[in-house]
């Protein structure tokens, strides 16, 4: 695999210039994600009203893959219902686990499909899924 197909323009841009890397003024909930292997830490904040993710942001530190994955995830899931978000998270994690996706599932991932190549790099899979698992835990804790 060509390394540049993973570190694409989209991923690089999101990793350094994310519009979502900030603190929300009045988040309704938040969750911490940590990868003990590399020390990456992110805090996800969200404003969830009537079952809809109205706003979401993050801060913390990590590699380009974990930072961009978080940013692209927020971009994709903002405005979605928590149920839709959970479904999309499940599809994303399946993709990283190298499970075959239907074209319908791929469509739902939009820009997050950029991480498909991470599935070929077992040592980096955790970087890509850190924020997705963190959001999954957050959404499950709301029930």
């Amino acid at each position: 695999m060509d390394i540049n197909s993973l570190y694409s323009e989209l991923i690089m841009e999101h990793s350094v210039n994310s519009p979502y890397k900030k603190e929300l003024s009045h988040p309704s909930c938040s969750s911490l994600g940590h990868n003990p292997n590399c020390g990456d830490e992110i805090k996800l904040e969200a404003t969830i009203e009537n079952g809809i993710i109205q706003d979401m942001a993050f801060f913390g530190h990590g590699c380009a893959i974990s930072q961009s994955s978080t940013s692209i995830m927020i971009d994709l899931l903002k405005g979605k219902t928590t149920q839709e978000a959970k479904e999309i998270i499940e599809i994303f994690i399946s993709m990283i686990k190298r499970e075959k996706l239907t074209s319908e599932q791929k469509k739902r991932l939009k820009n997050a499909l950029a991480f498909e190549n991470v599935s070929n790099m077992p040592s980096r899979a955790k970087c890509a899924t850190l924020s997705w698992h963190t959001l999954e835990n957050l959404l499950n804790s709301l029930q």
Partner: protein
Amino acid sequence: MYNFQKDFPLIKSGKTVYLDSGATSQKPKCVLDEEYSFYKSFNANPHRGTYYLSEKATEKYNHARHTVAKFINAKFDEEIIFTKNATEAINLVAYSYGLENINNQDKVVISIMEHHSNLVPWQKVCKTKKAKLEYLYLNQNLQIEDSELEKIDSNTKIVAITMLSNVIGDRPNLEKIINKAHSVGAIVLVDGTQAACHIQIDVQKLDADFLVFSGHKMYAPLGIGVLYGKKNLLENMTPFLMGGDMIEYVNEQSTTFAPLPNKFEAGTQNIAGAVALEKAIEYISSIGYDTIQKVEKEVFDYAITKLKQLPYVDLYVSPNSTSVISFNIKNIHPHDVSTFLASDNICVRSGNHCAQPLLKFLNLDSTCRITFAIYSTKNDIDKLIDSLNKIYGKFKKYIG
């Protein structure tokens, strides 16, 4: 001109630039052959059979122990306990010595640069016995000042210290530390895991009470490690793991234990590993530590010079390091750096190197780390530098 690369099947093809020997070294062919030959011609369970193979396996295992004892200048063969690695050896001491001899109000002193394997077991001992775990910190030069040794006081029962840091390469002044510890009646465990393939270890000269190392970081296979302990200490310790071959009499409700070293070697041991470790020791001895250090220092100095020429690189290296360099590219995460290096077949470690308290102390989340062995070359460093330049070139436009 030396050519140690030819001794290592995985290195000699030149396809892989292996700069992660601190994680595990590559293995020379003579060690691989020795392990194969044990299984091919001598495989049997030692200490049990009355037949030729078992007797031969026992003899080879004992001989390996003798070679290890000579290698680190132990007084008695039975002061050498085979374990699966240094981690198990430290846990053995923590459980069998630490839990028995540490009490409320006592202190265990370790350095901030310890690997988790020489840190977490002591945390456990101190928590269990309500004792205090105290750290020797580093100065700006990444070294332990003499004044830090004041922490080793009359409450101190154990000092556990590395011989060579796996992150910054520091080699603390063990003579001073051990003298100080002994002057207050504390015993000292030396973690020789990183040191064993670079520095001559002499347990009698050091006057170390316990010393541990892993075979796999010194050209031997995975799964064999060594605990050295002074005979009188080991004799007075309770066994760590219970089972076959470590007993004398077993009754329904009670057991008496075998003498050293069997007391600490429960169950069938890794005989092939011990025999291969003996071969690795012979390999090291055939080269000699003077040559090893000369070869590695040359590559190390070259790497430092080259890395210092890159304005975008930060180095984290103790002044007395000769085999370990931690570094970061400014504003690029070490995991991204190591992934790009990997795409050029350059193997380096990135992360916290099993030393989270040290990284926190240095105010770092993670670093890239390169570590050397006898097969490391300046050519490896040239390839590393080329690749680093390429990575920086790619990231430059994004990070400004």
